[in-house]
């Protein structure tokens, strides 16, 4: 089984588009990517309970790497850990990577069967190609 990915964003549209962009890298390859984004009424915001449910849904037993946008997305992801079962919580890594670049890198290695630590490390170096190009 592969590591699961969760995307936490203020905006459902932003999260869905980021996932669409990342899935371009996985033609025909399955990978669990869950989204927790926006408020119930379709506005901008994050919901720690929804993040918690997304993590539980994405976990196959191999663990989950969570990518976030800014501000309350980070606080909600941290808060979400409190609502998980202990064994699930221990398998979750919250990534400080930039959302889009980190997600693209993460899905490629996750679909290849990498561990959650490897997936998080790939996400964390997500800015490297852009920095190399602009140097």
């Amino acid at each position: 089984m592969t590591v699961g990915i969760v995307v936490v964003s203020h905006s459902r549209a932003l999260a869905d588009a980021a996932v669409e962009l990342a899935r371009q890298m996985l033609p025909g390859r399955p990978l669990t990517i869950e989204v927790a984004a926006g408020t119930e009424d379709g506005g901008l915001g994050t919901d720690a309970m929804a993040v918690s449910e997304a993590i539980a849904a994405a976990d196959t037993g191999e663990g989950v790497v969570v990518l976030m946008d800014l501000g309350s997305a980070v606080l909600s992801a941290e808060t979400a850990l409190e609502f998980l079962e202990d064994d699930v919580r221990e398998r979750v890594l919250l990534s400080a990577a930039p959302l889009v670049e980190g997600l693209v890198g993460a899905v490629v290695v996750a679909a290849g069967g990498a561990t959650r630590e490897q997936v998080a490390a790939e996400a964390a170096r997500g800015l490297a190609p852009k920095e190399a190009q602009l140097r």
Partner: protein
Amino acid sequence: MNPEQLTAWLQRFAELVHEQKDELTALDSAIGDADHGSNMDRGMTAVVAALAEAPPADAAAVLKKTGTTLVSKVGGASGPLYGTLFLRMAGAADGGFAPALRAGFEGVLARGKAEPGDKTMVDALGPACDVLDAGGSLAEAAQAAADGRDATVPLVARKGRASYLGERSAGHADPGATSTALLLRAAAETLS
């Protein structure tokens, strides 16, 4: 603390937030993302509805229901911050209001990683906890929270969306400190 008293406190806080929703949002539009009033109003309206629908049996359950509702319904950073405040209060509900509020405050510090003087809710909540821990009344704690809110006016924000504005964040009270002052005012009015 009994569940009826706590519910009355939360209902009064919800009323104050609703009455001052536009002022809270105006403060947040000056220095943030203009959603604090509407976010807190949505969250506290949901809390009051949840407590009315299935009144919890004890104080800890009231506080826990409040926390879990806020982390889900507020939307902005105030959700996890106020949510953590109430969840930690729930865990310390047996010791009375002052120790519970102190535990909640420590939860907010751990969650938000803000320090005093960063122009956040910490600047209102910390002084209120200090007053209560020293044996002061809820009215005195509410005054300390209001004074703490006023003291955020000249500060430059170092946390949250307001921190992107740098020096331009000075000159307005912090919205989170302002809503926290309302929380303590509601406590003084209902729990004394």
